[in-house]
C-alpha cells in the first residue's frame, strides 16, 4: 500500500548534531580569541589567520576533489588553530606551508577526518618549528598594540614571559589573563580562551577531564617545582598556567576528539600526561615552551590509553555471591 515506508533499525529519531555543527561550534568558541588577537595585533593577526584557514581549506578541498571548500568545517578549524600557535608578525608563507602540512601530512594521509593519530594543527606547527624555527620561537616578539588595527607591530619588540625569569617578572598575572603581552596569536589572552572553553563545555563538545587534568597538572607542577620565582610558589604555578600555550593547548588542542581518548579515565590520564610533559620540557628541557610536543606525545599514546581504560560495565562489580 504505502511504498514510501522506510525500514531501518531503531532508534528512529536522532539529535540534530552533525560533524559540521561540531566544527562550527569550535569556530564560534575561537571567536573571542580571534577578536582579542585582532584587537592586540591588528591586521597582521587577521592576515595570518586568514591565510592559515584558506590554505587549510584549499588543501583539503583539492585532496578530496570537492568544490565546497568549507566541507565539514574541520579544515577551517585546523587552519585557525594552527594560526593561533604562530607569532603575530610571522611571514605570510609560514601559515600557508603550516596549514598545507597540517592537512596533508597531519590528516589526509591517514585517511582523513577521524583517522589521524596526531593533532593536525600541531603536526603543522611541529614541522614549522623544526624547519623554520627562527621565524617562530625567536627571543624577540612584537609588543601588542591594542586598538591600532594598522599598527606596525614589529617595530617594538619584547621577549615572551616564558623566555626567562626577568621577562616573567616584567609581566603581571592580570596582564597575562587579559592577554596584553607578547606571544602567539591565540595564547596571550587567558580570558578569551576560557570563554571559548566554557562555550565548548556548555555545548558538550569537550569533556572537563582533559582540560581539567592538563591545567591542574601544570599548576601543581609549577607550584611544586617552579622554583617560586614569581612571588610565591602558588603564583608561580598560576604563571605557568597563564603564560604560553597551556590554555590554548588544554582547551582547544588536547581536546581534539579524533586524537584524544574516548574513555573517561583515558581522558583524565591523557590530560595529566599533557601537563606533565609540558612542565618537564619547560622546567628541564631546552625549549621555553612544551605544549606542542606534550600533546603530540600523548596523541601517540591515545590508542593505548583507550585500550587499558575500557570502563567497567554496568553490574560488573556487585556480583551476588
Amino acid at each position, binding site marked *: *500500500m504505502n511504498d514510501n*515506508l522506510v525500514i531501518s533499525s531503531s532508534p528512529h529519531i536522532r539529535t540534530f548534531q552533525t*560533524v559540521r555543527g*561540531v566544527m562550527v561550534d569550535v569556530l564560534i568558541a575561537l571567536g573571542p580569541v580571534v577578536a582579542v588577537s585582532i584587537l592586540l595585533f591588528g591586521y597582521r593577526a587577521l592576515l595570518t589567520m586568514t591565510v592559515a584557514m584558506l590554505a587549510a581549506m584549499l588543501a583539503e578541498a583539492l585532496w578530496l576533489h570537492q568544490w565546497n571548500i568549507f566541507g565539514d568545517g574541520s579544515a577551517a578549524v585546523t587552519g585557525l588553530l594552527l594560526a593561533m600557535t604562530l607569532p603575530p608578525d610571522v611571514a605570510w608563507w609560514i601559515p600557508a606551508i603550516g596549514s598545507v602540512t597540517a592537512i596533508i601530512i597531519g590528516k589526509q594521509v591517514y585517511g582523513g577526518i577521524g583517522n589521524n593519530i596526531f593533532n593536525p594543527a600541531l603536526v603543522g606547527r611541529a614541522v614549522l618549528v623544526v624547519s623554520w624555527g627562527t621565524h617562530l620561537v625567536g627571543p624577540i616578539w612584537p609588543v601588542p598594540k591594542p586598538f591600532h588595527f594598522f599598527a606596525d607591530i614589529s617595530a617594538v619588540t619584547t621577549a615572551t614571559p616564558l623566555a626567562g625569569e626577568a621577562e616573567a617578572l616584567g609581566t603581571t598575572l592580570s596582564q597575562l589573563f587579559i592577554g596584553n603581552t607578547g606571544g602567539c596569536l591565540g595564547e596571550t589572552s587567558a580570558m578569551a580562551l576560557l570563554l571559548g572553553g566554557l562555550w565548548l563545555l556548555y555545548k558538550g563538545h569537550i569533556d572537563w577531564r582533559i582540560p581539567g587534568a592538563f591545567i591542574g597538572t601544570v599548576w601543581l607542577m609549577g607550584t611544586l617545582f617552579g622554583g617560586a620565582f614569581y612571588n610565591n610558589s602558588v603564583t608561580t604555578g598560576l604563571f605557568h598556567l597563564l603564560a604560553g600555550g597551556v590554555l590554548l593547548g588544554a582547551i582547544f588542542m588536547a581536546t581534539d576528539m579524533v586524537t584524544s581518548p574516548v574513555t573517561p579515565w583515558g581522558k583524565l590520564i591523557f590530560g595529566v600526561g599533557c601537563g606533565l610533559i609540558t612542565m618537564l620540557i619547560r622546567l628541564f628541557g631546552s625549549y621555553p615552551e612544551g605544549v606542542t610536543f606534550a600533546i603530540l606525545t600523548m596523541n601517540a599514546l591515545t590508542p593505548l590509553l583507550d585500550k587499558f581504560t575500557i570502563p567497567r560495565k554496568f553490574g560488573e562489580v556487585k556480583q551476588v555471591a
Partner: protein
Amino acid sequence: MAMAIFKGGVHPEYRKELTASLAISVAPLPEKVVIPLQQHIGAPCEPLVEVGDAVKTGQKIGESEGFVSAPVHASISGRVTAIGPYNHPLGRKVAAVTIESDGQDEWDGQIGPLENYVECSPEELRDAIREAGIVGMGGATFPAHVKMSPPEGKAIDTVIINGAECEPYLTADHRLMLEEPEKVVIGLEVMMRVLGAGKGIIGIEDNKPDAIRVIGQLIEDKPALSVVPLKTKYPQGAEKMLIQVITKRQVPSGGLPLDVGVVNHNTGTAAAVADAVLTGRPLIERVVTVTGEGIRRPANLKVRLGTLVSELTELCGGLSDDTRKLIVGGPMMGLAQPTTDLPVIKGTSGILALTGEEVELIESDTCIRCARCVAACPINLVPTFIAQAAEHGRFARAEKLHAADCIECGCCAYVCPARIPLTQWMRVAKAEVLARRKG
C-alpha cells in the same frame, strides 16, 4: 528529596503532548482480528481451534506445553476463517488465527472472577496469571508468570511497577495510571502476594506529575506501597536503570532483577493482572497510543488484540501522505514496519507514524571519536569500538568489550553526530557474541 539518576542516557524531544491529555477511548469492535500464536518470548502456541470453529470472546485458542510461554485467546466472538502465517510486528510471518466477528462480542461463559482473590494461595494466583496469557506489556513480552516463579533460594523483597514510560510519544501507560489507577495498584498487590514481597514501588517519571499524584493518593493508607518520582531521562524505564535508581541495587551483568531481590513489571501488565483476578478475563485488549506527525488525529485507544494496525490508523484519520516510517512501539526502540497490514499484539504499546522531516536517511560519516556515545551509554560500554569491531567481523574483540551487555536502548545512535547506526552494529555484535557462546 533529590531524585537519584543513572549514568548516561539522553533527552530526546518527548512529543507526548500529542496525546497526553487525551482520555483513553474504546475502539469500535473490529470486524476481523488476527491473533498470532506467538506474542511472547518463548515457545509458540499450538492452535486449539480449527478453521470454521465458532469462538467466544476470551476463549483460549492457542496453548503451549512449554513453561516459558503464554496462551492466546480470542479477542472477539465469531468464526475462525484462517490459520496460517501472517505479518507480525517482529518482521517475519508468524502462524496466526484469523477470526471474523459475529458482532455479538459474546464472552466465554466459563470465565469468572477468582473467588475471593485475597485469600488465594500464591500458586492459584500465578496459575490465573498464566491462564490469562499475561506477558510484559511494555514491549518485551516476557511471560509474566515466569517472572513470578523465582528459583529456589531467590527471595524477592520488592516488586517495582514501571510507570516511567520513557519512550518519546507514548502515553498509554500514563493514561492508564490516570484512568484506572486502582487496577495498577491491585495488580501490584497481587504480584507482591505471589512473590511474598514486602515492598511495592511504582516508579513514574516526573513529566507525569498528575499520575504521581493520583497513584500517590490511592496508596496513602497502604504502608507497603510507595510512589517514587523519577527524573525524566531516557532510558529511565529500562529495567536495570529503573531498579538501580529505585533500590540502589545493580542487576549483575548477565543476571536478572531477581538476583537482587526485585521483580519489575510494566504498568499495563499490572492492570492486566488485576483484570485476571477480578474478572477472570484473559488479556484480550490493551491501550495503544496511535500518534506521530503522520497521524491526523492522534489518540489513546483501548483496542482488542489482533486488531489490524490499518484499522487503527484509519480510525485516527488515516496516515498523512508524507508518512515515511511506521513504527510499532516508541521511536527509540520500536520496530519499523513495511505495512499497516499487521495485528496489534500484547506488547504493542504504540503505533507511531513519522513524516519525512523526522526520518532522515543520511549517509554516515567517519567516527570522529567525540565519545558522545560513551557518555550516553547507560551500561557503560564504548559503542563506537564495539561497532567498529562488528563492522570488521572481530567478534572476539566485541565480546571483550562487553557487547553482550548492550540493552539496545538506542542512546548511542541517537547522539552520534556522524550518524553512524551504532545501535544496529551493537545488535549485530550482541547477536553474534551470544550465538557463539551458545554454539
